[in-house]
């Protein structure tokens, strides 16, 4: 089982994601260059944090058009696991793989801080190793992390149990405290907090491992 970490020009958490998978989770991972239309031999894709294409125009707006995203869409459509973290989440909403949008934080400032997250559902390949209601400490680092969507969509997300993480103390004004969601097929995750930054005791928390471990566990089951 291999993880693929997409590298866009301007990705800057690509190495962190790779390191947390290879060193803290202990699974193989490789980098996938944005210019390629193929994903190769990977079983899960991480769209890492950063400022893809400088976040010009709008966060994630240009990454949407990159060649690799064609392959990612197809991979997702075929049921492959795709986890978008921070800028990756922004890209997934721009692509329409996830509903809603990430707008400027309430307060208009970039915020870097460990935050409390409540794991809202274990019914996903990204949270299946966790416990419902579990409180995790995972950092955020974003200027545009305020999740917003039409009421209808928010209702739908809740009705379908697709809100996977909520902030315990909403830092950015996100609608209904939403920090992470999945698609209807439950194989595409978007979350603003950085689980890869919380996978090593030296970094103050290992709570982010639950996401990677869940992915690894569900892939193992899947491949049986």
């Amino acid at each position, binding site marked *: 089982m291999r993880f693929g970490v997409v590298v866009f*020009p301007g990705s800057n958490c690509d190495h962190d994601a790779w390191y947390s998978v290879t060193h803290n989770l202990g699974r193989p991972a490789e980098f996938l260059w944005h210019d390629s239309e193929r994903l190769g031999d990977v079983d899960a894709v991480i769209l890492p944090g950063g*400022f893809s294409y*400088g976040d010009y125009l709008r966060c994630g707006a240009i990454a949407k058009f990159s060649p690799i995203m064609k392959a990612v869409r197809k991979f997702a459509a075929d049921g492959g696991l795709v986890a978008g973290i921070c800028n990756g989440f922004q890209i997934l909403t721009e692509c329409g793989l996830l509903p809603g949008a990430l707008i400027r934080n309430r307060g208009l400032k970039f915020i870097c801080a460990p935050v409390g997250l409540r794991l809202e559902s274990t019914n996903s390949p990204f949270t299946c190793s966790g416990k419902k209601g579990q409180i995790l400490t995972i950092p955020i680092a974003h200027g545009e992390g305020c999740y917003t969507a039409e009421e209808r969509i928010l209702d739908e997300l809740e009705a379908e149990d697709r809100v996977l993480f909520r902030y315990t103390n909403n830092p950015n004004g996100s609608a209904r405290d939403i920090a992470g969601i999945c698609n209807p097929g439950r194989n595409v995750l978007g979350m603003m907090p950085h689980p890869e930054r919380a996978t090593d005791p030296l970094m103050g928390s290992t709570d982010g491992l639950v996401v990677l471990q869940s992915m690894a566990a569900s892939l193992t089951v899947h491949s049986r």
Partner: protein
Amino acid sequence: MSAITADVLARHNITPDEYQTILKLLDREPTFTELGIFSVMWSEHCSYKSSRIHLKKFPTRSKLVVQGPGENAGIIDIGQGYAIAFKIESHNHPSFIEPFQGAATGVGGILRDIFTMGARPIAVMDALRFGPLDDPQTGARNRRILEGVVSGIAHYGNCFGVPTVGGECVFETSYAGNPLVNVFALGVVRHEDIFYAKAAGVGNPVIYVGAKTGKDGVHGATMASAEFTEESAAKRPNVQVGDPFMEKLLLEACIEAMKTGAVVGIQDMGAAGLTCSTCEMGSRGNVGVEIDLMHVPQREKGMSPYEIMLSESQERMLLVAEKGRENEVFEVFRKWGLDAATIGVVIPENTLRVKDHGVVVAEIHNPALTDAAPVYDRPHDTAPYRTAPMQGPTFTSTDFLADLTTLLTSGDLCSKRYIWRQYDYMVRTNTTLGPGADAAIVRIKETGTSIAMSLDGNGRYCYLSPREGAKLIVAECCRNLSTVGALPVAATNNLNFGNPERPEIMAQLVEAIEGMAEACTFFETPITGGNVSLYNETRAGGELVAIFPTPVAGIVGLLPTQAPVTMPFKMADRDVVLLGGIGFCDDAQFGGTEYAKQVLDDLWGMPPAIDLEYEKRVQAAIRRIIAEGLAESSHDLSDGGLAVALAECCFSPGNIGASIMLDSGLRPEHLLFHEGPSRILLSTADAVRVGEIAAGFGVECPVIGKTVEGRLSIRNRDILLLDSPVETLNQQWEEALENLLQGAA
């Protein structure tokens, strides 16, 4: 033909004497382009003409130093085949004119200095100085400058992907018209991957990479070399605009290009842009560089050779590649979507030759621009400038808790969380100790070693005595590192001063340099590079205001990678130990304290006295105590003295406070708030062993109390001095900066 009048020379900041030297060196009149080249290369900013003879006093060697001053950054060995490159630089003048872009490009410039040496930047810190946020006249502007500078740093560092892990931020009236933005950056590199800014190999192509050249920043270096006038704001076009995304691409592309083996030498285009990089690369390699400007990628049509040579457009690099292997280099830059063009060639003569469509527009012997640049021994045979009296007012406090609150809610001492939470201080997942600590710690994943770093400056101390102030700064910076268990090993510095042509200012500079040199020699932290920023003065309404002399030290230390020892008390019923002892203070030495500033609104006397020998022993003791795992918390005493340090140790979600019982003959104001050095607070479960270690180093080590839940109380000889719930103090401390920024205070 040429119209080089006195007026033209003045606009180029070239003195008549300097012009005569230029005529002699060239043996003819310079072209306008050549005049421009001389003006930037001979500017204070590039030539260090006022400071150079004194900078030689700094220690620059140790067995760890791989590269000392003279390159883009200093490099020291950290073992196991790895090294770190680090340096500090100022962007003071641009940050006053355009705070956001000024600060952003300050970050960009120092990052390029690091990765041009082959090192990947892994940490940034900032030393910031602004005017008081609550000043009735300048407060609104000071608040706007702070907001702009902080967003600019955040914008650039966050997007580039380097963690901003710490720094300091102090407010003083003298910075109201002249804020300071000093940015420190540190990178990691394998020894065999270190690159130098040296041209070599006659016939090798000279390649330009990165952003296109525009008219922005023409003459930034000369601007940074003159004092401010109210008209400076009209120089806004001199401030460059930064693009951190471009810089990120440049970083990745340069590191990848270096790995091809086809790169001979590389230098960033910073101050003085293409001029400085072509001339210095040639000069360092004892060869020359010839370029034709028609090949330089340009952002707009019709730029003159003068403008192209002096442009300070950001995110550009110059490199020399091995002839015949250019394509390997170009391929990497194409992959990253960057412009790269061969603009010239390495020539055997030690000369800078600039052509425009084949016509020579400038031809200058490199040493004329570098070695022959003027060096001034500016008069400094006078007392350093100060107007503060030696004697202070008589005063008696009626409420020590109110005094403590005043200090904790002052701009200088309040929580800076509002600032640093705008910085991504965790990206790259190496930050084991981030902002708000005594020192920041970043681990090196590859080696099991961590790097601790701290920035320190104190304009008030240096104003009272530049020499003693500078020593205290170095001592505190080293103490900050030792307080987290690191051994200080090397330093960089940023010398921010006023106009060196005034002898009393020059005297400040010379004394500060000598004090810093003495302390750095003593602590075995050689200075491997740095920056001098002079002319930090503003002419406001006919009056010339110089900043307080503000040397800033950036010191790095080494320690094994491990869970860090942090500042807050961890649990109740632990012994609180004041390693180093209560220290000493008299009326004169109290005049530079934060208490004198915040409570008494005054400044007098002398900075605290320091015994360097004792300081070193205190630091050795705390490192040993930490190495033996005995310190549950550790925090050095500095601004605000014992009471402020104790309060800071109480600030954590656990709300662990302390019950302190002192036994001192000092008057209570001094006891609580004096800033004598060589003191570190720690909490421990084994005060006996801590005491043994301290005794072994000949260091006092009184147990001054116990940690308790929820309250901070301080008694001296059974007299209660202050008592407060920890939460109240914590909340006031946390909220102060935002209150000040809202203009509410």
